[in-house]
């Protein structure tokens, strides 16, 4: 084979023979930490890498029908909290985060930035991920604890136990978010 053909072919990932697989564990339910696993999962699929996401504890909110559209930001307890796009020099002190309505304002601001970058909102993003072949799982124990059934999750997501997670993550790269 010529060099040129080898170069072109080098890019192609044959899904039948590819071995790279990424498993993400999504454990946080804030708007700020909802996007990293979604962006990474999407990037994996765009590059032809198999990907599955396991949602545990607060992360479950991101695939729970009733909550996925209402994910917001915590304004207390984040030492890096600032109005980054508007006034990056102003670190918001913890006491200020306690003012009623702060979380609402911060959430609106971030949602605006997300929209400006043309990133889809969480429910649409999850649909896209399912369409692109990402598998979504809800942690069984967390679901039991929060009194959730499989039908409370976005259509296409399934419930999975910790032992089954071990099988699923066999031979995969695992990332805890």
């Amino acid at each position, binding site marked *: 084979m*010529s060099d*040129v*053909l080898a*170069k*072109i*072919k*080098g*890019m*192609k*990932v*044959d*899904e039948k023979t*590819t071995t790279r697989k990424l498993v993400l564990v999504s454990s946080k339910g804030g708007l700020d930490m909802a996007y990293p696993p979604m*962006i990474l999962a*999407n*990037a994996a*699929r*765009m*590059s*032809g890498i198999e990907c599955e996401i396991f949602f545990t504890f607060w992360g479950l909110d991101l695939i729970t029908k009733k909550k996925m559209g209402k994910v917001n930001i915590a304004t207390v307890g984040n030492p890096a909290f600032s109005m980054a796009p508007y006034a990056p020099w102003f670190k918001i002190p913890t006491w200020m985060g306690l003012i009623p309505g702060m979380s609402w304002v911060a959430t609106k601001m971030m949602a605006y930035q997300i929209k400006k970058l*043309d*990133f*889809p909102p969480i429910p649409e993003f999850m649909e*896209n991920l399912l*369409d*692109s*072949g990402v598998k979504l799982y809800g942690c069984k124990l967390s679901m039991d604890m929060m009194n959730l059934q499989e039908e409370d999750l976005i259509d296409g997501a399934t419930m999975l136990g910790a032992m089954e997670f071990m099988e699923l993550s066999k031979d995969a790269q695992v990332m805890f978010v």
Partner: protein
Amino acid sequence: MPETIDLTILETLDFDDDGFMTDANDWTPAIGKAIAAALELELTERHWDVINFSRAEFAEHGDAPSLRKITKVGGVPTKELYVLFPGGPAKLAAQIAGLPKPTGCI
């Protein structure tokens, strides 16, 4: 029987280490066909919709479109894109369209 495509056309062109054409202006539909053939992909009309849209976006913005743009503006749903370009639609579509590697995160 699928038509046989002459791949020698590719030998005269420059590709970067990732297999993307270094000069998008050298591209012709025949080259696109040959790149697809090298990737063992047979192009249908829907493939051409994506390729032509990508070329047009590149001409306008100087960058290969993100997958999101192809679905939202180009009108090819996510699911279909993954069927058309198995193994990484963002990369493969840009590669066949003779564009540089896409830089968008979505």
